[in-house]
Every structure is written in structure tokens, then in C-alpha cells.
């Protein structure tokens, strides 16, 4: 019999190239976060995300919240399972914001887009959900089919900081 059904992350195989980056623009694939789309009115403020009980809730629109969790199941989170629809990349380091500013048009200054901010917008030519976790610490959610493009784009953007 063949192998058991194992999971493959959209950016499996990129770890080695990510590992070559300096700490100032560290990239880490976070492959298997559960995500669900929950519809209906939300009390979440626009353009924010919050930590709730066992999951993060991201405002996507006036009637759409994305719940994400690295350990809960989709059934526990509720809503439509979209876990494999997007994949997650963590970007942090002293030049994280500098790097994003080479391809993201929204104002990322900490006064405007600080910890707890979220935006559905464009990074390079890819549609992303951008979350700010703290100073120079971001999570980027990207459609799985665009993940390789975005990874290549991020690595290329980091060229300047390789020293």
C-alpha cells in the first residue's frame, strides 16, 4: 500500500531559501493554520484583528471575519473551512516594514498600522491579508496558488538586506 495521506504546505520546499535570509528580514512559512470564514455582522473594528478564545479573528469586511488558529480544527472554529485557501508567511526583523514598503501601498507606519492592524490589500501583485503583530513583525496570508509567486517576490525584495 502507498504512503498514508500526509499534508503538504504550499511553501514546503522554500525553507532552505528562507533560512538564508538575515534576521533583519526573517521569513517563516506557517503552513497548517486552520482558517474559517464566518459570515454575519461583526463587532470587530474594520482593519483590525484580535486574539479571541483560542483563535485570532481578522476583519475582512463588514460581514466577514476570518478565524485562524494553528491548533484548533475548522469544526471548532465554525464557518466555512478555508484552511487550504490561503497560506501564512511570518515576516519579522529590523527591515520587515522597509521590505513591505517596496510593494504595499498602504501606510504601514506604526502610528497608522500598528500591532492589531489588519488589511486586505495588494503586496507586489498578489492579494494578501496583512496582519501587524508588533513593531516590524507581520503575518501575511496569501492565496495558496499565489504563495510561490509571493515567496519569490519577498526573497527578491530582501536582496538589499542580505548584506
Amino acid at each position, binding site marked *: 500500500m502507498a504512503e498514508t495521506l500526509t499534508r*503538504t504546505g504550499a511553501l514546503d520546499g522554500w525553507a532552505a531559501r528562507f533560512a538564508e535570509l538575515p534576521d533583519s528580514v526573517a521569513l517563516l512559512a506557517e503552513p497548517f493554520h486552520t482558517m474559517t470564514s464566518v459570515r454575519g455582522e461583526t463587532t470587530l473594528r474594520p482593519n483590525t484583528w484580535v486574539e479571541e478564545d483560542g483563535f485570532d479573528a481578522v476583519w475582512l469586511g463588514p460581514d*466577514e471575519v476570518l478565524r485562524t488558529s494553528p491548533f484548533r480544527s475548522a469544526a471548532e472554529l465554525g464557518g*466555512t473551512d478555508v484552511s487550504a485557501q490561503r497560506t501564512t508567511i511570518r515576516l519579522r526583523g529590523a527591515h520587515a516594514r522597509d521590505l513591505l514598503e517596496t510593494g504595499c*501601498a498602504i*501606510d504601514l507606519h506604526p502610528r497608522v498600522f500598528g500591532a492589531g492592524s489588519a488589511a486586505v490589500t495588494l503586496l507586489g501583485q498578489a492579494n494578501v491579508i496583512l496582519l501587524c503583530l508588533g513593531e516590524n513583525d507581520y503575518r501575511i496570508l496569501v492565496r495558496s*496558488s499565489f504563495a*510561490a509567486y509571493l515567496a519569490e517576490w519577498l526573497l527578491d525584495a530582501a536582496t538589499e538586506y542580505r548584506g
Partner: protein
Amino acid sequence: MTRVDGYGRVDRTRTLRFTFDGVSYTGHPGDTLASALLAHGVRTIARSVKQDRPRGVTAVWSEDPTGLVQVEEPFPEPMLLATTIELVDGLVASSIGGRGRLAEVPDTARYDRRYAHCETLVVGAGPAGLLAARTAARRGDRVVLVDDRPAAGGSLTGTERICGRDALDFVADTLAELRAHPDVRILLRTTAFGHYDDGFVLALERRTDHLAPAPQGLSRQRVWRIRAGHVVVATGAHERPIVVADNDRPGIMLAASARDLLHRYGVLAGRRVVVFTSDDAAYDAAADLAGAGAEVTLLDPRPVRGDSRSGDYRRSRGLVLGTGAGPDGAISHVFTDQGELPCDLLLLSGGWNPTSHLFSHVRGALRYDAELGAFRPGEALAGVTVVGAANGTFDLAGCLAEGRGETPEPLPRTNLVLWRTDGDPARQYVDLQRDSTVADIARATGAGLRSVEHVKRYTTIGTAHDQGKTSGVLASAITAELLGVPIESLGTTTFRPPYTPIAFAALAGRERGQLFDPVRTTALHAWHVARGAVFEDVGQWKRARYYPLPGEAGGTEDMDTAVLRECAAVRRDVGILDGSTLGKIEVRGPDAGAFLDMIYTNLMSSLRPGRVRYGVMCGLDGMVIDDGTVLRLDDEGFLVYTTTGGAAPILDHMEEWLQTEWPHLRVTLTSVTEQWATFPVVGPRSRDVVGALAPHVDVSAAAFPFMTWQDTEVDGVPVRLARISFSGELAWEVSVDGWHAPALWRRLIALGEPYGITPYGTETMHVLRAEKGYPIIGQDTDGTVSPQDLGMSWAVSTKKVDFIGKRSFARAENRNPLRKQLVGLLPLDPTVKLPEGSQIIEQTAELPPPPVPMLGHVTSSYRSAALGRTFALALVKGGHARIGERLTVPVGGDLVPVEVTGSVLVDPEGTRRDG
């Protein structure tokens, strides 16, 4: 050497070597190519484009109309201004005659872009701009300060005093203060070249050209995309020459440019200097050049006044009428109204034109100031402030005041507006780069042109690299003079971005090569690559087109061979396709069925959970926009499959109707395109493969009928099986979440091995579906094809009261029997494959004289393994009634006879569907 001791800010302790026109020279850090050449007395650096006249440097920065060169090293680049090329060791350049030469090797430099946001953007780091930036920074604004030169200070020469201190010390202190603010960004060597809506300014930063060797990893040029709450335009002014006959010779330049050469680079551009001016500013040039050792004669048409700056120069009332040249073509003397004067440098100054381009880019209106003889910002513009010389304020105190946000008392004007002196109009150059003269303008007005925009295009004045920075106002003024109308009634030509030439490479940035356009890949991409798939682009997707096997004589199969093999394998045994790119939308809510009834032409609300239905979507005009299958998941849930290309537009289409027309419907739409990977397992042995995958599922035709679906688990992983066929064969679409897609695919390949499972690509998929007459929306349709044209009246509900497109079907034209309809075509010669797109005409043995009535065109054309011959699908006028007829398809010089058939060519009875 014309370098003068004690002058200039170049670093004379270090020497740089460069080559120009094959001759080696030296210069210093801080030099430009132009200043270094002038330091060696090289005055002729280019030839003019039409008349091949020698040309030198006429202005020292980007406004120079003449000094274009070709750079060879470090990288070949044409048409650069010698005045803006910072000297680096090893620079190799040559003169050109108005046309450069593009590099024949790829440009390996990096170019990128960067966004910046600020409350205040200040363009220009001269005295006004520095003060504006300081004022904004002190009130807590985020500030971006850009300046196109390597150093701040603008036109300050170092001879001025600000607040009782040396002006350049003041500049250094102000910069230091600005740099200490964390939210102030200072960008030197950065040209703001375009100003757009909502405080958006594009600026080009030259990051590495002044560094030799260029550092690794850094982009050579960067386009800054700056979004500013407020834009302060502090871009200074361009000096304006006075037009005299033969004013294009090397050795003729603007007065302030010669002064800048002296103070910035320590270069004295002439020893015997004539200054011809109608404005006070040029007196500073006369005094400074005289102070540096030149013999200077100043001619001014105005009565001699006592308050202008004194110096060791001769001054008299007079006019320069023309110039003469020595054997090298450079100036040797001038003709004045009082006789001839020998000289090696003529400085011209007729006043100043405010550099108000960035104000004009955002439709700021300019007003003619008759005292200045110039156009200046004439109205307040929200979000934009123009200060200093760009605003027509030319005195230092006034510039500083405006920079601080104050409104200084205007100084009385003493200048005389003088556009040209008497002389031969054919020798009076207006645009030196274009070799355009006063005579050319006269020819334009003589031809009846009355608008400066028309004169510009007729004479080409202002169309060169400099975009008329020094010639534009002159051209307007001389046109006005020739027409006998006031200049203010003509205005200027429109300033448009870019302010200076910008390389396409910089605009492209990193969007080159593999980052040119996003490449979308499925979860199985690595498997396809490892299997040697040949890919095709489907929108942004890379899809496996076919999987060539090793050929007999080495190499690999060609596409025809591979596709025939894949097709035969599917219809004989079993094949598997990566169909994950199909768009998938989960439609959920109590009104989901009612909503889909409006979206699709057929009824969807009646579909029962566990069932699948094929559906067609039309636009309001009744033309097909997409098709696909719909799975009813439960009472309130449907899973809609769209075409690959339809995923995003159909979601938008559905959202539009839902949100704008039917907001009362309780329905939500969620894209799950990448959540689910979908693999059609197709062919007579597919039941064996799917049965082996899901042993607990009864896959018999009775228990698992066509157009139904069931969920199962494989190793505990949820897997969905749906009996859907896009080939007429027994088939299942196997779906799994994207994380498990590669493992499930490998499982299916392993389980299928005993049955000869063959992975196939999109080309084979296309052949198999075409053999069954299934259209591809966007290939067999083009937005003018209705479901009825496709022979799909069966998919159009007659029961539903309404759906999108229904009313259009009732239009008389939609019922016209001569509409183009989808049919099959069989070339009489079964080996001839018709090119897709071929036109179709009535049967003929000889091409009739044009116009030949066109009956339609070939939309799909393939070789069929099942038929053992070629076939095609086509849209043909009245095609359904023509079945059985013969028509002709001209292909190249041949007339290919074809027979019209129904569109279903393989298994028209549908016997293969259930295995």
C-alpha cells in the same frame, strides 16, 4: 585646465580617470562629466541632430538642452546629459549627434520601487524647501524632502549669508536638524518627476551610479511612490536665455550656470567673457567670474543703474546681435550693436522661469507675469504650496520667508523682458536640441497655426529630452510676437510628467522576468514539474498541458504524439487530470437556491442534496459568460464550479447582483478555489481506481449514478467523489483539501497503476471534450454566443419567471435562424487539421473575388485518436440547419473542403458514461 584654485566643492585630493571620445581625462569626486570636460577645456561635446552643428553645455543641470552623450561604461546607456552624470572612476562616454544607441546586452542592474507616506512632502532642498521641511518637521509632521542634486542647497553658491552665517553652513545645520527627526526622510539624487491626484508624487532616486563599483544588492534606481498630505513645491527656477543669432555655439551658456560651475566645481568656463543680460541676477555671475580671474564685459539694454552688484568687470548699455566661431566651431567673438567683441564665453540671461511643473501636473493654472516675463502659479491649489523661486520669488530673503510659511513683500522688479534681439530668424535657435529656430516658428504661424500646442508639434520645440525647460516660454513669446497677440492669450504648452526622462527599466522595477506577472500554481505543481510536464499559461495559472514520454530516438514526444497517446489511454483505460484551477464558490444561506435560479439559465433550487447539475450563466444580453457544475451540499449550501478563468469575474458578478440588486436575499459567497483540489479520474477503468481509493463506497452505476456526489474518508481525510464527466467517459471528480492534494494524487496514481492510469494535461482534456461537443467558454464562445447558439436550449429553463439574460432571449435577433451556431466540421481529407481561427466560406473550388461572404470561423481543432482523423468545432451562420452540407475553409493558399456535422462526434448516444 580651467580649474581655479580656491573655488568649488569637488574633492581635489582624489583623482578619477575617465574617457571621452577615446581621450583619457581626469576629474575629481563631486564633478559631473560636464564639469570635468569643461575643466579640461573640452567645450564641444555633442553634434546637433538635424544640422550637425557642434554643441556644448548650455546649462549645468537637467535643463541643459544640448549636452547629450552616450555612456559606454559602466553600462551602455544612450542620451544622458553630461551635466547630470556624476563622475566615477572608469567612466567611458562619447559624444552623439542627437541619437543614442541602446545597449545590446541585457541590463542586469536592479530597479525597484518603494512607497512612502508623509504629511508633508517638500520637493527641492534649496533655501525655501529646507525651511519648509524644517517648519513641517518641527510641528511633528512626517516629512519627505527630495532634491535631484547630490547635495542640498539648491542654487546657493556659498557666497550668500543666511541668518548671519555662511549659507552652506546654514544648509548643513538645517539638514542635521532634519536628520535628527525620526520621521523625516531626506532623499538626495532624487527627482520628483510626476505629481498626480491626492498628493501622489513619483520620484526617481539614483542610488548607485555615483558609486564605483556599484554595491551588490542595491537597486540602481528606485521609483518612490510618495503619498503626501501636503506637497510643497520648492523647485526653483530655470534661467531663460535671450535669443540672438548663432546662439547655439559651444561656449554659450546661461549666466547662473557659469557661476554654478565656478562655485560648485571650481571651473572657470571662459577667460574672456561677455555677459548679455536684461536682469540683475547675471551681474553676480559677471562679478564672480571676474573675481576668479576672467576678463568680463557686461552688456545690458537697460540704462546703467547704480545699485547692481559691482565687481571688476566692464559694463555698458548694449545688445548682442550674433556670434562668430573659431575653427573648432566654438564661440570666438560676439557681434554687438557697438561692434565686435572677442570672447571665449558668452553668458545669456533674460530672466527666470519658475519651475512650476509639479504645480501644473495637478492642473494648477499658471498666470503670465508681465513684469517677470514668465508664467507663475496663478491660483491656490488645495494640498499644494509653491514657495521660493518656483513661485516667482527670486530673492533669498523672500525664499526663506516663503519656506517658513510667510508671505514676503514682493521686491520691485527691475528686469526688462527681452526675448530676442534683431537678427536672421533662421539662425536664432529657440530649441537647440531640435535645431528649431525663430524661422521655424514663423513657418508654423505662417501655415496658420495659432495655438502654442500646434506650434510645438509643428516645430518640435519642447519635445526633446529637456521638454523645453529653457525654450518653452521663449517659444510662446515669439509665437505671440509673430501673431501680434499678447503672450498671456497663448499660454504655455502643457507640462506633463515626467519632468525628466525616466528609464522604462525604472518604471518596470522588479516586475521583470519571473516577477513580471504572478504565476499561479496548483498544489500539484511540483509533481507536474518532476513528471516532465509541458505547461501552458491559462490566465495567470501554469497548467500541465501534456506529459511527454521519452521518444524512440532519444528526446521526448512532440505534443501531437503525446496527446494522441493520452487521449487513447483515457478512452481505453483511465486517465487523471489536475483540475484544481477550476473556480469554486460556496454559495450558502436560506435563499441560496433562489439566488442561483437568477444567476443560472436553468433551475438550481430544485437540485437535491447529493446531486450535481450542469449550468450555464449569461449576461443581461443573453450571451454565455460561464458554465460549470453545481453540487448541492445541503439545504442551504451549494458548491459552484466555474471555469478556470471565470473564478474571479464570476465571483464579482455574483457579488454584484447579490449586493446591489438583491440585498434582501440571505446568501453569502465564499471563494474556495484553493481550498479544494479536484482531480477528474476518467475512463472505463476509473471505477476500479475510485473503488480502490474508497473501498467503503459502492461505486456501481446503480448506487452511484451519474451527476451525484458522495463524501468519504481516505485515511481519515475527507474526500469528495462526484460523478461528473467532461469527456463522455465514465468518470469521477475526486476532491480533497489542498493540504492533502499531493498525497491523494500520488495515491490515485499508485492505485491506478494496475489499470494503466495515465496523467493527462489540458490539451488532451480539450480534445476529449471537443469530441463530445462540449464548448469551452471563451474559446468556442466570444461574448456574442447564446446558449441556443451552442445547441443548449435544454439548459435554459422555460419554467422560471426570470433569470439574468432571459428577457434578451425573447428579442427577435436572438431567434434569427442565421445566427452563428456551434457545429462540428470534418475536413474531407482526414489528415488536414484546420488552424483555429480559420474563416469559413460557401463551398467553392476557386476563391471568388473579394469581398467573400464569411460564414463563421473555426473555434477548436484537433486530431482525434478515437475518430482516427482530424475534426473541428466552428461557429457557422445558420449552422444547425447546414448539417450535412459542404463548406470551404481557406487555409493559406489552399481551399479545404469540409463537411458540417453535429457537434457531438464521439459516442453521440452516450453509452460510455456509465462504463
